[in-house]
């Protein structure tokens, strides 16, 4: 027993031959949590999920589920069930038999079993579809069968491997809501793999951002967006502007920075590790930047409007700032823009922000 969470992953690594799919990962997932593994393809998220299911054996480390070490437990004895990426509905069985597949071992009387299947059909809104074959179902219906087939066994953990990836956009959004509703009503811990950041932000209680076999940050959607710790996380989730600078001095929790292309500014810094003379990276979200036609009071950047994209409720601007490699991205509600809207491309503009909009990143 060395677990803090309901699922406890301790120094788990996985190699396929000479390829290191997962470095040493440790994290905890709480009971009843909707937990997402988010990352681009090849980041190791599916490998980690398959290790939780028991289809892959960790090359190092140990996984605990509900306090029990899992390394010697085969997939068919683990208290987890999985929804596969392609759903893996058995084509030779109808919907009822697919859902009842895992009940064989429980040796239930037929009436009891039928009642359980009916209950599941209701839960996933497939009542009346019991006699259909797998090839008579749409993508969304297959997914519901896969969910019902797993949930009927009342697993401690439900693993979902990009279950919405194959659905079209509209159905995907509908299924997202439904998954969330389902997770709340059954109260089972969900571990959800996705490469879609929006999906992860919408659904999850917490998200682990993965890259190259490493976990970069584990946090709530809000914290990931507002307080990314590294440049990789910051650029992976949403759009982000980056600034480089140098620490001039630290006084009373305030830090004086010399930022390239901006000059000296003062920020309140929660970051204890910053030392005078350090180079550091700062990040700022496009919607936290305010545009001005004339120089505002306080610190500001001056640049030229390079491009405007009108998106109905809001507009996106690219502003070329001398000294910055990338143009600064700015996003604003059109209702708040006023005279800025009428600006020609190439016009000079000033950018300002609130002190707390600047995020100090780890490293460089």
């Amino acid at each position, binding site marked *: 027993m060395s677990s803090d969470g309901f699922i406890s992953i301790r120094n788990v690594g996985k190699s396929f031959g000479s390829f290191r799919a997962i470095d040493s990962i440790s994290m905890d997932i709480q009971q009843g949590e909707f937990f997402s593994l988010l990352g681009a393809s090849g980041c190791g998220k599916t490998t980690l999920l398959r290790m939780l*299911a*028991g*289809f892959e054996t960790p090359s190092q480390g140990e996984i605990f589920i509900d306090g029990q070490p899992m390394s010697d437990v*085969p*997939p*068919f*004895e683990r208290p*987890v*069930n*999985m929804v*596969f*990426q*392609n*759903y*893996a*509905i*058995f*084509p*030779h069985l109808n919907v009822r038999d697919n859902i009842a*597949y*895992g009940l*064989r*071992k429980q040796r239930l009387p037929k009436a009891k079993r039928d009642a359980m299947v009916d209950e599941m059909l209701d839960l996933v809104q497939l009542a009346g579809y019991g006699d259909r074959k*797998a*090839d008579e179902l749409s993508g969304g219906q*297959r997914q519901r069968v896969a969910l019902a*087939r*797993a949930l009927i*066994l009342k697993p401690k953990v439900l693993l979902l491997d990009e279950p919405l*990836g*194959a659905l079209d956009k509209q159905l995907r959004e509908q299924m997202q809501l439904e998954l969330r509703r389902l997770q709340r009503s059954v109260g089972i811990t969900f571990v959800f793999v996705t490469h879609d950041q929006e999906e992860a932000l919408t659904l999850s209680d917490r998200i682990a951002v993965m890259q190259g076999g490493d976990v970069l940050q584990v946090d709530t959607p809000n914290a990931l967006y507002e307080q990314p710790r590294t440049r990789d996380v910051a650029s992976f989730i949403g759009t982000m502007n980056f600034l480089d600078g140098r620490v001039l001095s630290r006084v009373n929790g305030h830090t004086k920075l010399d930022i390239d292309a901006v000059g000296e500014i003062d920020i309140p810094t929660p970051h204890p590790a910053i030392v005078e003379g350090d180079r550091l990276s700062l990040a700022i979200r496009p919607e936290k930047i305010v545009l001005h036609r004339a120089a505002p009071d306080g610190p500001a950047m001056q640049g030229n409007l390079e491009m405007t994209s009108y998106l109905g409720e809001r507009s996106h601007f690219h502003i070329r700032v001398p000294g910055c490699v990338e143009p600064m991205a700015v996003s604003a509600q059109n209702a708040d823009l006023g005279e800025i809207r009428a600006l020609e491309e190439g016009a000079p503009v000033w950018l300002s922000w609130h002190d707390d909009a600047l995020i100090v990143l780890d490293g460089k």
Partner: protein
Amino acid sequence: MSELSYIKRPNRGLKIYAAAFLTVLYVPILFIPLFSFNDSLYVKFPLSGFTFQWYIELWERSAVWDSLGNSMRVGVAVSIISTILGTLAARAITRSRLPGQNAIVAFVMLPLVIPGIIFGVSLLILLSRLGVSLSLYTVTLGHLVVCLPFAVATLLPRFEGFDKSMEEASADLGENGWFTFWRVTFPLVLPGVIASLLLTFTISFDEFIMAFFLTGTDATLPMFIWTQLRFPQNFPSVLALASIILLVSFLLVFVALWVGRLGLIEPEESQS
């Protein structure tokens, strides 16, 4: 302008070629049933009249029934054993990461191209060295060598054609390897299993060379036909027997091919 695409455009030259090909292939065979109904001891034109005499004669000879029984016994044993072995081999080939996998597949398939006479002679030498007397068992052994590659070749596409995650899903839902095989793998490859049974039975039933070397006192049907060729007066009934075998073989192979393809296309649609 034709609405057919370039590749689907009809080609008269190819049609004629295909017709000629099939004619050359099957016309000689058609002479066998033709002469089996001919009211004459001799195979020659012009035909002298229609008769069922040779078929009736066949019916009344106990040696025919004996050899038919032998062939059935060998055929059933061979088809069951080679299909079981073929199923295991196909599963191993498609499901595990074996070192030297391609070499293993090549070795399994090798009997397809090694002349039967070589296999027959070598088996005969081996068995006589071991002191095993020739019987229907040795014929069965020889036929297994011949039929196993066909069983594997029939079953491999079925195993390759279905998604590995089906078996993982079964394991995930609590079934161990054995129950996963019975509840998921076997039903999904069942058409291939049936096709393999029919095909290997047909091959064993028609096989001559192995039987020639390995038969003891009990003759299989092809061996019986071979011995009858020495007696000219029996020749028309041999033709009658050959006609029946042809017909049954054709039917079995057609059914095998048809069953083997059942459902091969649909499961693929579930993959994204």
